[in-house]
């Protein structure tokens, strides 16, 4: 087990870009975790004069927004919101995707037909509009945004899982399991899934990055939860000031860019580490 982990780490580390990505992700996670200690006050509190530029006043290193709220505090707390939504949405999407993809491929026939048509139905709806619809129906709560993002991003995972399962379901080791009289659920979860998982994990890590972008878009359009700090909302609020105080949009924009880039790099690294043959080819 330990050897396996070392092997995995070595393969991951061979990709320098992935290492940088990992480092950035760790920084973002660190800031998110440390937010309550770095900024003990409510981040949405008005603390100073509005529109103080970054690096002017040491009390507000990243400046203040149009209401006089500390941008640094909002970025730190926004990292929590963003990562939480990203992780939970990715988890939701992965769970839905694997369940549907695995069931469709394993049982085949009309079940496969039905589940795939169902998947296509979701694929044909424009993602962002679907998210906005769900949020405006359910309400502006962070939980609902997470669910909405999960609901629109599970389709590629379902298709990938299905393809992996199709390739594996008739292999000898699966047939051996059947011959031994194992139940369907046990074969699916215990035997096929571990073998099908590596590419799915890679895709899930990319879904996190997508979820971050979705959350930002929803908040930018003013449909996010106004009770929590969020990067997208900060950009949306700063939009009207873009000609005079562009940093209000630029700072959270940079944060989103770095996070999404880092998550994508980590995804690439995971791909290398989990599918070593693919890389050597």
């Amino acid at each position, binding site marked *: 087990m330990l050897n396996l982990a070392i092997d995995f780490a070595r393969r991951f580390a061979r990709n320098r870009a992935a290492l940088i990505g990992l480092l950035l992700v760790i920084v973002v996670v660190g800031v998110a975790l440390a937010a309550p200690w770095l900024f003990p006050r*409510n981040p949405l509190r008005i603390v100073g004069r*509005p529109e103080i530029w970054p690096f002017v006043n040491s009390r507000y290193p990243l400046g203040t927004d149009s209401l006089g709220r500390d941008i640094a505090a909002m970025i730190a707390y926004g990292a929590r919101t963003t990562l939480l939504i990203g992780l939970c949405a990715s988890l939701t999407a992965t769970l839905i995707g694997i369940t549907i993809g695995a069931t469709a491929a394993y049982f085949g026939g009309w079940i496969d037909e039905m589940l795939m048509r169902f998947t296509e139905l979701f694929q044909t709806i424009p993602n962002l509009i679907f998210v906005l619809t769900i949020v405006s129906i359910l309400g502006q709560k962070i939980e609902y945004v997470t669910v909405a993002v999960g609901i629109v991003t599970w389709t590629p995972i379902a298709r990938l899982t299905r393809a992996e399962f199709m390739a594996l379901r008739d292999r000898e080791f699966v047939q051996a399991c059947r011959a031994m009289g194992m139940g369907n659920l046990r074969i699916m979860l215990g035997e096929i899934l571990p073998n099908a998982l590596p590419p799915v994990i890679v895709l899930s890590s990319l879904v996190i990055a997508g979820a971050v972008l979705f959350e930002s878009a929803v908040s930018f359009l003013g449909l996010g939860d*106004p*009770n929590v700090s969020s990067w997208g909302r900060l950009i949306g*609020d700063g939009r*009207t000031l873009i*000609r*005079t105080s562009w940093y209000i949009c630029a700072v959270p924009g940079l944060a989103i860019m770095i996070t999404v880039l880092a998550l994508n790099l980590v995804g690439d690294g995971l791909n290398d580490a989990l599918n070593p043959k693919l890389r050597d080819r």
Partner: protein
Amino acid sequence: MSRFSRRDFLITTAGAALASGMAGPALAGLETPKRGGTLIGTWGGFEPQSLFVPPGGGSSPYFTSTKVLERLIRLTVDLKFEPVLAVDIKPSADFKSYTIKLREGVTWHDGNAFTADDVVFNAMQYWKPISAGVSLDALEGAEAADPLTVVLKFKAPVPEFFLKSVLAGKSGLVIPKHIYAGSNIITNPINNAPIGTGPFKVKEWVRGSHVEYLRNEKYWNPGLPYLDRLVIRWWRDPASRAAAFEAGQLDIGTFNPIPMPDIARLTSGGKFIAETKGYSNSAWVTTIEFNQRREIFKKREVRQALMQAIDRQFIADTVFFGRARPSIGAVASSNSIFFTKDVQDYPFDVKKAEKILDAAGFPVKGGSRFKLSLVSAGWFEENIKIGQYVKQAFEDLDITVDLAVPDRATSLKRIYSDYDYDVAISNNSGSVELIPSTTQYYTTDGIVKGAAFRNATGYSNPKLDEIVAKMTVETDEPKRVALAKDFDRLATIEAPLLPMVDLEPVTIVRSDVRNHSATADFMGESWAELWLDR
């Protein structure tokens, strides 16, 4: 007759400019106007559902229809009524009937003559049942005494200022009888290309883009309009309107067309002017409303304490970049007839608010006095910020606040249909006349479930209802003003809802556009007098 009215117009506008001590663009009326040219205008909102929406339909169709359809009279910036289609409106001694003398030689865009029959049709078939609503409840009948004289009859005395306000207001547009008679006025397809008596004729409406008007060559006021062509174009985003101004694609934009922070940048070069006149008959405010269906807010002290917890100067300065003023009382301070300073004051004082809440039986228990849901209507971008600020202000009193800023449709539903809020932040615009545009937020008959922009708090007080009922039939103007002040004082002490800030809408206009913003509701004016100094 028309010459007289034009001179009258120039005198009043120049007078207004001098009175306000401002050498604004209105003074340009003393120059000799130039004929011709195309003006491109817009407003700080979106395209209307139809160019003319008979029951009202908000500011957008009001803006597009008033270039074509006219009213009997109009209200100037110094709140005097001026003749348009009527040359004279006189009440009888008992104020139960009014005689309207109409202008001679007015024709509709299709060539038919405008007569007393049209006005009778409007009064009984359009104004009373469709556009004016409760305002004309007392109207019993209308008859044409001769082709240019109409007599309106009422069951109860009707104050002169009140009736003239209705006729000069949003609901007083005059539509042609020969086109609408026998049809459903609201759904008549002609509303997409209305026919009126106004200075401009609709040439074409390109949906999603603009509407183009051409000069009415047979306008009753010879020489007017000065423009050959008027185009109203719509943009979806304030920042793109600012860009259109700079690119020379836009000449005038009413009602806050561009982001507030851009105003200083755009006007600093002298090429554009920010004009605040022309809004006195549509005084916009941001209100805070306390739902009376909640036990907590049935206590007057609680409402008053929360009013004191809000720093309204902060909202005016920071959220509106100084383009708003803290409100005083229930009547807007721009209302030069009914406004009074002599009302309960709610200065920003957190300590005092805490004391009042303690005394009212809501001490801090377990870190919180009570929990409330705050709904800030999402139709204006500023309301997002105000919601966040008010949340913080209440949290400073140890009140737990759950804030929501829903989109326009959901906000309307939560505040005015479902009453699903504890405290709401909303907006409304009132005319100079207080009945019903201001009073309907406080009176019992203003509680109409599902009707937007009415009494959504459920507040009901027989004493206040009585004052408003007296105002409805009081024909002596000074007595009426005294009643209005009683209403204001009571409403402000009771505070079921109150304006937090009076907004100061701005018109952005190129400096070579002349003769604008001279009436009490410029956006809904015909724009016949506008001219271009190019």
